């Protein structure tokens, strides 16, 4: 462990070993990758472990409501142009999972870490990051998370006095408010389709004027969008220092182009030219199963993860048009949040024309939601049943967190 930097104490080494043992048990028990469990074991014996494991790394933290795992992956791909990278690539994004991931990183130069929104301020304090990428903030799992604006406030407090360069989305008012406490921000206009969490000013509560699709400004206190140094426009980033950046990705959709734009800006702060970074990102075809197209029962199922209203909105905009069949799966287990109210913030009329099947623990919530939306659907007990009712060819399968994991297991992804 960590021979290249400060040696770990005997206690820390023991903690890492204990954590790894717990992870191995978790993997053997079939409970996932083990990266969440391993870290939990590791943290208990030594709370300073995270800081020490990160000590020799150039650390990038990535946080957002949506797109954390993909952005983390794209940044990791980009930074590999400059050296070895350690990353919590499987999405274990609380301090425990981060510790577990870093315990494998003794030879790495960069640490690229996805951080749960609630823990960003604390992790940023512990690991002294060089860069922090902030993409978006919107309503998500309000039965167990704080209010969305409270999260922005915690970010804002946590970033105050941080030495990190913050790469932030200039199009999300909550992100702009959070990031603007930092003295060193690179603003990227990466877009934000979902606007329903930012009708009032994060700073004073006044109404936000949105005279067009891009501009927003508080009518009362004047807080508004910052001038970006890069603007995502189609598949290009315009107006960065130097030539426009061309984005070519295998990953589909506008949200992933936004993600790539932010990731390229992060890479640039480490001296990696954006075009080199973007070229490396092109190699990514799927991220922890997301966007993977899997052959199953003679159909090609594209696996899409969407966990909250903003995520579903972005996902609807990237699926193939009708008559491509769509399977929707929703659970409400612990990791999903136990409250399904958010389904009513999703505009399911966007799926009109697609044959729709609903599955998952909470398929009856989906059934009522679609009934009220006036969109036709079938309720199926299993993925197999839903797939068998579709003609051969592409199927778009959209699921929230644990439903997505269930689906991956079923199709052998």
């Amino acid at each position, binding site marked *: 462990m960590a021979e290249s930097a400060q040696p770990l104490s005997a206690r820390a080494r023991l903690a890492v070993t204990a954590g790894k043992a717990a992870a191995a048990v978790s993997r053997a028990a079939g409970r996932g990758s083990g990266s969440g469990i391993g870290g939990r074991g590791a943290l208990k014996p030594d709370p300073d472990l995270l800081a020490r494991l990160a000590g020799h790394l150039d650390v990038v933290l990535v946080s957002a409501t949506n797109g954390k795992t993909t952005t983390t992956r794209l940044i990791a791909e980009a930074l590999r142009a400059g050296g070895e990278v350690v990353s919590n690539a499987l999405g274990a994004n609380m301090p425990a999972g981060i510790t577990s991931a870093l315990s494998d990183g003794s030879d790495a130069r960069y640490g690229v870490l996805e951080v749960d929104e609630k823990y960003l301020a604390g992790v940023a304090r512990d690991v002294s990051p060089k860069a922090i990428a902030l993409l978006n903030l919107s309503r998500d799992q*309000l039965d167990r998370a704080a*209010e969305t604006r409270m999260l922005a406030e915690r970010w804002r407090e946590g970033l105050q006095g941080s030495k990190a360069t913050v790469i932030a989305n200039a199009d999300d008012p909550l992100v702009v408010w959070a990031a603007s406490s930092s003295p060193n921000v690179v603003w990227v206009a990466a877009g934000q389709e979902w606007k329903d969490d930012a*009708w*009032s000013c994060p700073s004073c*509560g006044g109404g936000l004027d949105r005279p067009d699709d891009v501009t927003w400004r508080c009518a009362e206190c004047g807080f508004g969008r910052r001038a970006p140094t890069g603007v995502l426009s189609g598949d290009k980033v315009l107006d960065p220092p130097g030539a426009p950046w061309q984005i070519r990705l295998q990953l589909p959709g506008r949200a992933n182009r936004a993600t790539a734009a932010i990731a390229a800006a992060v890479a640039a702060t480490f001296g990696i030219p954006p075009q080199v970074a973007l070229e490396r990102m092109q190699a990514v075809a799927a991220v922890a199963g997301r966007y993977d197209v899997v052959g199953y029962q003679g159909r090609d199922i594209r696996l899409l993860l969407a966990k909250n209203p903003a995520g579903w909105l972005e996902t609807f905009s990237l699926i193939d048009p009708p008559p491509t069949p769509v399977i929707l799966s929703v659970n409400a287990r612990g990791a999903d949040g136990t409250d399904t*109210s958010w389904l009513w*913030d999703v505009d399911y009329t966007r799926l009109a024309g697609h044959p729709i099947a609903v599955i998952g623990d909470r398929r*009856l919530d989906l059934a009522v939601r679609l009934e009220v939306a006036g969109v036709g659907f079938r309720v199926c007990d299993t993925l197999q049943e839903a797939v068998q009712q579709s003609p051969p060819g592409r199927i778009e399968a959209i699921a929230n967190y644990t439903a997505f994991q269930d689906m991956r297991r079923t199709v052998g992804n």
Partner: protein
Amino acid sequence: MSSSGLRVVWVYPDLLSTYGDQGNVLVVERRARQRGLTVERVDVRSDQPVPTSGDIYLVGGGEDRPQRLAAERLRRDGGLTRAHENGAIIFSVCAGYQILGHEFINDLGQREPGLGLLDVISVRGGGERCVGDVLADVDETLALPQLTGFENHQGVTQLGPGVRPFARVRLGNGNGTGDGTEGAWSGTVFGTYMHGPVLARNPQIADLLLRLTLDVPALPAGDDRWYDALRAERVAAATQPA
């Protein structure tokens, strides 16, 4: 109801729509249309005047600061109070329920005046937030089936003599007063802590709002297959926690 049809007013979606509150609007709208009514849905942002000629007003839940801003703007505007005086039906949820009362505790920890349309006073509970599934028996004078919903709040709402409890909880917290009451109602004004899309799980309450508006004892039955299935599942889940 005017000759042009049913006017459903969603009050302040920019401030009071934290989590699925649109569901109540969509359910009322859908069930009215299914009964052959013409529906005009009016979403009123907090920088717009609240129309006084609506039939049904839906007021949703919100975070602490938006709740204060909503109360300030509704008091200043006066439209919702005038609509009430005109006999409109008002159905409110969570933060909206507190705003309809005499006062609540705002995000600054101060007593904030409400609209006084319900004889209730809300304070902030000292304990844990009330989060989870709720099962409750609705006031028998309303003749409705069991209430199933989800609560997520830290309020404690004391009912005055001018209202009746909307329901009595079997499971969950409701008003947080420890006496088992949940929500409040009086005449044409209703308040509940069941948040967001409570009408999706309790379509009979949506029908109650329509019956009161139309002043009819019953509505034509619809195809409630999926609502019934969802209700049965949620009631079973609430009574047999995993």
